[in-house]
């Protein structure tokens, strides 16, 4: 029962943040709503026992990524931004309808598959505790070593790429 209440609380927070992000015209508010949503998701992660990931979620997403967004938005200083959506009422209706359809499909498929309608076991298995993090680290550096390394390349690309883009013609730090 407590779990249920907790779940519903977190779920509502998350959904509220997501819906708000979708609806508010001001991008800064949207970013803030997204932060709320992400924190909610982080809570859900924790609820599912993925403590480490939950932490990372808060730090990386809510902390780093969204801050980046906000900074950029502030850089732009979009005061005049009053309209949330693109033009075209009809196309909006169609878009919402189609996404609704897609959602229906996803959920329908899930409902058809009865194995998922099982209660979530709250007692955490040994794997999922702090030793789980160690396990994860082990996995990361053995089984998924390759991916880990490649991600390093990716980050380098991002670093160099962002700089290069900024300094290229038309970038923020264009060379004369």
């Amino acid at each position, binding site marked *: 029962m407590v779990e249920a209440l907790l779940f519903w609380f977190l779920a509502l927070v998350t959904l509220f943040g997501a819906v708000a992000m979708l609806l508010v015209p001001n991008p800064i508010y949207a970013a803030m709503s997204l932060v709320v949503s992400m924190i909610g998701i982080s809570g859900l992660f924790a609820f599912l026992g993925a403590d480490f990931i939950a932490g990372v979620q808060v730090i990386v997403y809510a902390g780093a990524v969204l801050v980046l967004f906000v900074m950029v938005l502030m850089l732009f200083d979009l005061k005049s931004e009053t309209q949330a959506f*693109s033009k075209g009422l009809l196309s909006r209706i169609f*878009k919402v309808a*189609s996404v609704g359809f*897609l959602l229906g*499909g996803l959920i329908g498929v899930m409902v058809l598959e009865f194995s998922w309608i099982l209660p979530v076991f709250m007692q955490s298995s040994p794997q999922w505790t702090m030793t789980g993090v160690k396990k994860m680290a082990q996995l990361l550096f053995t089984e998924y070593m390759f991916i880990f390394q490649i991600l390093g390349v990716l980050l380098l690309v991002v670093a160099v790429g962002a700089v290069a883009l900024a300094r290229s013609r038309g970038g923020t730090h264009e060379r004369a």
Partner: protein
Amino acid sequence: MSSELLFSLLIFAPLVGFAFNGLLGKKLGGHLYPGVIASVASFISFVASVGLFQLVSEQPEQAKYLVIHAFDWMQVGTFRLPVQFLIDPLSSIMILVITGVGTLIHIFSIGYMAEDPGIAKYFSYLNFFLFNMLILVTGDSLPLLFVGWEGVGLCSYLLIGFWYEDHEKAEAGMKAFIVNRVGDAAFLLGMFVLYSHFGTLNLLELNSLAPKEAIWNWLDPITIGTLLLFVGVTGKSAQVPLYVWLPDAMAGPTPVSALIHAATMVTAGVYMMVRLSYLYTAAPYTMIVVAAIGLLTAVLAATMGIVQWDIKKVLAYSTVSQLGYMVFACGVGAFSAAFFHLVTHAFFKALMFLGAGSVIYGMHHQQDIREMGGLNKRMPLTYWTFMIGWLSIIGLPPFSGFFSKDEIKWFALASDRGGNWIFWGLAWVGSLLTTFYMTRLMAYTFWRDKKYSADHQPHESPWVMTVPLMILAFLAATGGFLGIPHAIAQILPGHPNHWLEHWLKPVISLPTIKQGITVEYEWLLMGLSVVGSFTVAMVTRYLYLNRIDLIDRTRERFEVIHKVWVHKYYVDAFYQKYFVENLVLSSRDLWRYVDVGVIDRLVNKIADVTKELGRGFAWLQSGNMQNYAFITIIGLIIFVLFLFKG
């Protein structure tokens, strides 16, 4: 001399003449050389044909022919077509007539065409014509005959359009060729029919394979084949309904009209039917058609001849009419009579055409008989030779026309292959009409008072032209004795038989006399013809010389008929309007609406639609990335629906 050598001379002399004149004639220059060369070539050919005639006559009675094999023309599977020539009694006479009359006309042309710049071309065409005509009559199979058949048509085309700068003359040549082509197409089909039935196109084999019994069946291959061949005849021999080209063909030089459009080429159809006499007699329905068409042509052409003012046109219609007689004779099975008339007609009609040529030459290329008159004084030689031709064609004894025409009329009644009184009656009327318009021609041209203006004094033609006239006049006068009718022969000393019939006996089918028709009938008919012709001739002469007003009144009285005759029964107009114009117009419509309008349009439409499709795709590519994402989602949904539908 061997037959091969003689035959080579016969064929190649004109060909060499053609080549020589065609290639070098213009370079040699002068107005004499081409003519002389061509005439010599023609004469050599004539000599060769005399030799061949001699050789044929020396052959035994059972196999009275020579076959000259040259090479194989086409050979595909079982279809074999050798280039092989046949000299038999029939073709030996034909080559004599062709080369003989041809030589005379060549000589005449030397004078007639002397001032024409295209004289070399003219003589080369003339030689080439001889060559083709000889192929036509000596070829031993239908396709070979067809080679000559089309070849002479080609020469006719070239010679009619000889003065091509004149729009109408060029048109006339074209018309002649195309109308002939209609017949030729049917001729081709006829050949196919016969080949499919008999498996051969060899003339001798066809005749020998032809069934002995008449086949009364419209759908029998023999009937169909012979009918189709006959359509070819109506083209070449200017029968109803394809006769329209011949009057127009008078656009060519007059000697050409004499040679091609009177003496030789136009008789090719008759020759062909005579050639295939056994085949034709096996198809009685065809014979009925042939007889009817022939008679119809004979009478209709005669009526049209009455109203012509152009001296050559009169002769042209007369030719059509006489060809009608020949065809008619074939139709009643009197092939020998037809051939007899063919020969005599060649003589007297060539004579008359050349005479007309001489008149035209003397009148400085004036062809309208209303402008002539009184020429008997100015051109006595021409007049007297023309007179013989006239006597011959109106059928007064002892001139050649009498014998041959009389024989046709006799068989019109007496032949057991469809002879009857109606045929005879129509033939008789036709001959009277002939007498009428020929006498009219004589009256206008020679007997009337002079009408030409003083500064255009007519003059007698030079000897190169008159000598051939005289020779032809002699032939026209005496040619009839080749076939003396039985009735007359009986009372003559020594009972000379019908030489021509006897000579042709080995190769053609001869008719028998109907039961109950006796020799008295022959006398009766002969009498009726002679008296009729004589009377009509005298009356006509009187009317035209003394009572011209009566003629004019009659004409006004029967204005409608006159008009119909002048307009050639509106046949030409009918063809022009309903065939030619419609064809061209509908082709133009077809082109505009089907070729361009449908097919091309369709092709372009397909291209356009494809492009529109492309434009549609491009329109989806709106540039808005949210739309792209939307399309992606739609695609995703379609995927999901598709995959979960089952």
